């Protein structure tokens, strides 16, 4: 034995070798922070080196089923992937079908489409904020998100007859008309949400813990947002002015007065603020719609005239709702194809419908915003801390059923 350790040990026993501790972590599909997917996280210490998103746990093969159903039967199908945002899912599909059919909804129906879409956007954003806050351990935000969403869901229920899977928008118009009771409900909901948003600001947005968890976390630069193909509030949180409602106005958006909140920071907090301000903008739009909505039919004359007069009188004039004309059962649109876009709650939603002249579509392509997020999420998580996985997940508002379709 020697009394001099430097002869035995490298660097005289003084060198500290830092061994990277790496391993894989299997987050999900049965994990409180994973949602309906599996995230294979490759960790180095606390830093995420790489993730592999194993999506597809809620895949419903909507695109394949679309080739086997009549056009009208697809309305309930396409809104299933994102039942929280079903008006938008429905609207995008109908816009494409209307383009192939060559019909245009009347003015009042266009306003009603915008109205229901904005109500749905508020509900969807509140849901997203709720999920984000519970990921950060803030259970109050979670409960508030779901509780405050309720008033808007109730409006949708009064308007369309269903809480989430509304199937409200049909080719050539909408199913039901807005009545006085719903307007009153909406005014109440607007006042209530305006009050509640103040509480939200003090409890969530200005909460030091929430801010610490979101600021400078998951920073997506403008270049990366464009490269990775982000859409919706995530894109606008990175400073890109892009909103389908402005770029390609559909429904009544070209007549509505609203602004698009854009933040430059690109971090989770900016994305949250964009969502938050979009709620305020949506409320502004709803006010305007209630004020300016024109009188008139809610279904285009071409379909309206196909309803037998007695039924039309009974339902449309007395109850202000549409009974489906027989044409809908299995109509065959002309050959052709159409691409439609709407700004859904989570971002741009694209439908590409090809008709071969039969009663079924030849091909329906549905690009949902969450579907585009798969790649964004994968790239954005790299290099952040493990605890930020859920923070980024929540701030992107990634919704697995919508991504899998």
């Amino acid at each position, binding site marked *: 034995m020697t009394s001099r350790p430097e002869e035995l040990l490298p660097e005289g026993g003084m060198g500290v070798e830092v061994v990277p501790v790496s391993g894989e972590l299997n987050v999900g599909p049965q994990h409180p922070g994973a949602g309906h997917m599996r995230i294979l996280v490759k960790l180095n210490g606390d830093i995420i080196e790489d993730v592999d998103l194993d999506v597809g746990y809620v895949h419903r093969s909507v*695109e394949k089923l679309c080739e086997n159903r009549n056009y009208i039967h697809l309305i309930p199908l396409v809104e299933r992937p994102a039942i929280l945002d079903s008006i938008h899912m429905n609207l995008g599909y109908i816009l494409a079908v209307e383009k192939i059919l060559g019909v245009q909804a009347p003015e009042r129906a266009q306003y009603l489409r915008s109205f229901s879409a904005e109500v749905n956007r508020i509900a969807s954003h509140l849901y997203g904020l709720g999920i984000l806050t519970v990921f950060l351990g803030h259970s109050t935000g979670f409960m508030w998100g779901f509780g405050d969403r309720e008033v808007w869901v109730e409006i949708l229920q009064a308007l369309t007859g269903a809480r989430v899977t509304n199937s409200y928008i049909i080719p050539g118009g909408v199913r039901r008309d807005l009545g006085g009771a719903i307007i009153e409900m909406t005014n109440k909901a607007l006042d209530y949400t305006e009050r509640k948003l103040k509480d939200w600001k003090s409890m969530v947005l200005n909460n030091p813990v929430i801010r610490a968890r979101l600021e400078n976390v998951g920073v997506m630069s403008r270049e990366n947002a464009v490269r990775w193909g982000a859409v919706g509030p995530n894109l606008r949180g990175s400073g890109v002015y892009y909103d389908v409602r402005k770029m390609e106005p559909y429904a009544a958006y*070209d007549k509505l007065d609203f602004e698009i909140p854009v933040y430059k920071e690109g971090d989770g907090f900016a994305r949250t603020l964009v969502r938050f301000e979009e709620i305020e903008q949506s409320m502004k739009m709803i006010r305007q719609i209630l004020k300016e909505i024109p009188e008139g039919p809610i279904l285009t004359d071409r379909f309206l005239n196909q309803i037998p007069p007695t039924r039309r009188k009974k339902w449309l004039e007395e109850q202000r709702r549409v009974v489906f004309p027989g044409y809908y059962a299995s109509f065959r649109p002309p050959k052709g194809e159409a691409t439609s876009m709407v700004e859904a709650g989570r971002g741009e939603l694209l439908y590409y419908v090809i008709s071969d002249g039969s009663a079924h579509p030849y091909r329906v392509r549905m690009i949902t915003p969450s579907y585009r997020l798969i790649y964004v999420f994968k790239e954005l998580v790299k290099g952040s801390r493990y605890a930020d996985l859920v923070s980024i997940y929540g701030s992107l508002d990634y919704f697995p059923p919508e991504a899998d379709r």
Partner: protein
Amino acid sequence: MSQFSQQPPSQQPPSQQKAERIIDKLLAEIKSTFNLNVKAESERRGYVELNDPSILLKLGEFLKEKGLDHLKSITGIDYPDQKKLAIVYHLSSYENPDLASLILIVKTYVPYEAPEIDSVYSIWPSSWTFERETYEMLGITFRGHPDLRLMFLPEDFEGVFPLRKSFKVRQEGLFIDKQA
């Protein structure tokens, strides 16, 4: 730190007054450079038919340079009677406000015998998801894609391509027992 862009960057739905629509200009440039079939459906939709998929990457780089940095979708379509698969690219722009309001639809075909095409991952990284899905659903191989594996389908779902027309969906009949 919040900043509302007060005016949307030069919007132009009513651009009929303009002597030349942007889409026509873009399509004319594509036609002159690559000698392709082009068609403007409206001022918001333009079609490009690419019969030779080998120049896809060149076309892609050209379009990216023109400002079409937003790949909206890649769609695979099966045409069993012609024994070919169509691949449709929807392109638009984030940054260029003029191009953002239009969609350029590039259509190309690959035969059944060799369902292979170059990946546009190097031009638009967001094609990562689209190409993986098209690969698993229609069996089109994208050369140069970094991670071409099954995505939505289970791992043992080999050799069957659900979105091809040969894959039939078996439907159960709907039976309702009438109560007496």
